[in-house]
């Protein structure tokens, strides 16, 4: 009796490098906790009304407006270089990534004195629409930043997560700049 060869089962196809939502959700949760924590601190902390001034400026708000404008300019550099990294505009070369990383680091570090001044001297306030918008987005910005930094540590996050995180940071920063610096200079 002739035996019928039984074909060997094919090896399962290699699973495509899947993306995971778990790390995104965890990063989002941690970022949200940071935002809420800053808001709670700003609300519970009694505003001192004073803070360490920066030499060379006539007053604190002027220093903050200047620093925030530098941060906004660096955020534009971030946006342009990110578009180059994603192939949306013709920017090539390893320098694009280097500029993107260092402009981001510089931007967030320059923003820290401004944020600490707001939290320590002024707190989370809500006496008009501009101020409550500024307070909310000030807390939101650092949560979005933490979200982005945590997403950056993972290669298995979905492709949309990092641009989303960068967009959230840029949106938060733009809103902050418009509700403070624009108001300071033009109103």
């Amino acid at each position, binding site marked *: 009796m002739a035996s019928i060869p039984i074909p060997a089962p094919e090896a399962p196809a290699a699973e495509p490098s899947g993306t995971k939502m778990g790390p995104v959700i965890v990063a989002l949760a941690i970022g949200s906790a940071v935002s809420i924590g800053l808001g709670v601190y700003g609300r519970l902390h*009694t*505003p*001192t*009304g*004073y*803070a*360490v*001034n920066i030499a060379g400026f006539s*007053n*604190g*708000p002027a*220093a903050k407006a200047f620093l925030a404008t530098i941060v906004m300019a660096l955020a534009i550099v971030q946006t342009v270089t990110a578009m180059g990294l994603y192939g949306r505009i013709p920017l090539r070369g390893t320098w694009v990534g280097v500029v993107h*990383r260092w402009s*981001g*680091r510089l931007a*967030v*570090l320059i923003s*820290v*004195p401004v*944020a*600490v*001044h707001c939290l*320590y*001297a*002024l707190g989370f306030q809500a006496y008009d629409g501009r101020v409550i918008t500024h307070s909310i987005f000030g807390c939101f910005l650092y949560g979005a*930043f*933490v979200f*982005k*930094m*945590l997403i*950056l*540590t*993972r*290669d298995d996050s979905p492709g949309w997560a990092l641009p989303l995180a960068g967009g959230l940071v840029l949106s938060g920063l733009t809103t902050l700049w418009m509700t403070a610096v624009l108001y300071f200079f033009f109103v």
Partner: protein
Amino acid sequence: VKHRSPLITLAAVALAFAIMFIVNMTVSPPGSGSTGIPGPPAAPTTAIALQTAGGNSTATPDANPGNAQVTIDGEHFNATPVTGDEGL
């Protein structure tokens, strides 16, 4: 693959926040190095504490500010808020 540099950036930012808070809490007393932003209004006082040389004084808050009691060396006095019109 885990990328460490964003975590280092996060740690650096957290450290910068901590340093700035500590500097603000320890270095800048009111009126020195001020940003020029007026502080929050002070809480209203209900009694005035008087201090005399070599004497002990205590102030007793009262629900009615006009009836606040001040004790100086065992004697009780009515304390009234200073208005600047006392001709001192």
